[in-house]
């Protein structure tokens, strides 16, 4: 196999593997009255469900993995959604007591729509959830790039 053929196959493989729309964001949420562990769990559940529903409304046909990690002064909370029928799986390391501020890292990977659409849908899902829980939101980082992982194989 020549180097060109090898590159072509590698590119093909990555495209096959990368037919997923992706979005990630790092968020800071705040509530001066405080957020209880129970509310934090409801928030994470709603966040993942709302974001996923918005993606499906825009044409996604399969969840790759939608997940979020919350870090607070009272501990951490991981949320993971792979199948809407099964629902959000939560792993809590939160201690008792409320907290006022949390950092949330969100990852959205779905099949059927590309990064720009996943980003728009995710943003709508985030806003819906923030409104429902009456939280203040600061977006610390908001990331998406199309075909980044295979860019190096594309000859310009």
């Amino acid at each position, binding site marked *: *196999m020549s180097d060109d*053929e*090898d590159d072509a*196959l*590698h590119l*093909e*493989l*990555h495209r*096959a*593997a*990368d*037919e*997923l729309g*992706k*979005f*990630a*964001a*790092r968020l800071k949420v705040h509530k001066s009255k405080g957020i209880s562990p129970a509310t934090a769990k409801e928030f994470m559940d709603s966040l993942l469900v709302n974001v996923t529903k918005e993606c499906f409304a825009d044409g996604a*046909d*399969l*969840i*790759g*993995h939608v*997940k*979020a*990690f919350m*870090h607070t002064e009272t501990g*951490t909370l*991981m949320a*993971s959604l*792979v*199948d809407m029928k*099964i629902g959000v799986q939560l*792993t809590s*390391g939160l201690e008792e007591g409320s907290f006022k501020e949390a950092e949330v*890292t969100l*990852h959205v*990977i779905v*099949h*059927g729509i590309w990064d720009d659409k996943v980003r728009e849908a995710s943003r709508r899902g985030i806003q819906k959830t923030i409104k429902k829980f009456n939280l203040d939101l600061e977006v610390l*980082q908001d*990331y*998406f790039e199309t075909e*980044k*992982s*295979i*860019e*190096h*194989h594309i000859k310009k």
Partner: protein
Amino acid sequence: MKLAQIAGFLGSGKTTLLIEISRELVSRGHRIAIIVNDVGEINVDAKFIETYGLKAREISGGCICCQIAGSFANTIAILHNTFKPDIVIVEPSGVAIPWGLKRAAEYSEAECDVVIEHAPVITLVDATRIDLLMDAVKRLVETQIREADVVLINKVDAANEEQIEKSRRLIQSINPKAEIMLASGREGKGLKEVADIIEKRISPRYDEAVEKELLRKQYGGG
């Protein structure tokens, strides 16, 4: 230093299983480090893994098997020089190719005084979503199964008998040589057996001819 890959499609339960296997290996006296290659530049999994007191490093910004192979090799070298793990468990993103990842890991031998050996490549298949995945991302699932030494049919606690059997038949048709096991990261099923495989068994080092043959079979019509 032994390198163990745990591959599989998104949401197949890699992180959950990896944490439990790592804890089992730590309880056996091993010094374990974990490298995760999440999709995107913001990593979730490394943060989660560290909440279990495990040593985790993240590599982001591309595909671990080629684009950021240098970063991967460098991370292994740094881990070897500082933390001295005897086993490094790698959770590659869905776009990494197991044979390419072996090659990238072996690059670290040029950067520090270490000899890399490989545990069998383990691929997870989510039995609860096998139909959905074969409809939507067939080629990726096939690639991950084809390059595995051991395929774990995972989430058997949530899957029915038909889904498990369907998964088994699919794996056998794609990779007849693969060893097939049943697992549940949440219930601990198969954990000790997988830890045994990582601890005691060896998989061949990188061989360019083997990788090209695998690529050709998958994409070259061979």
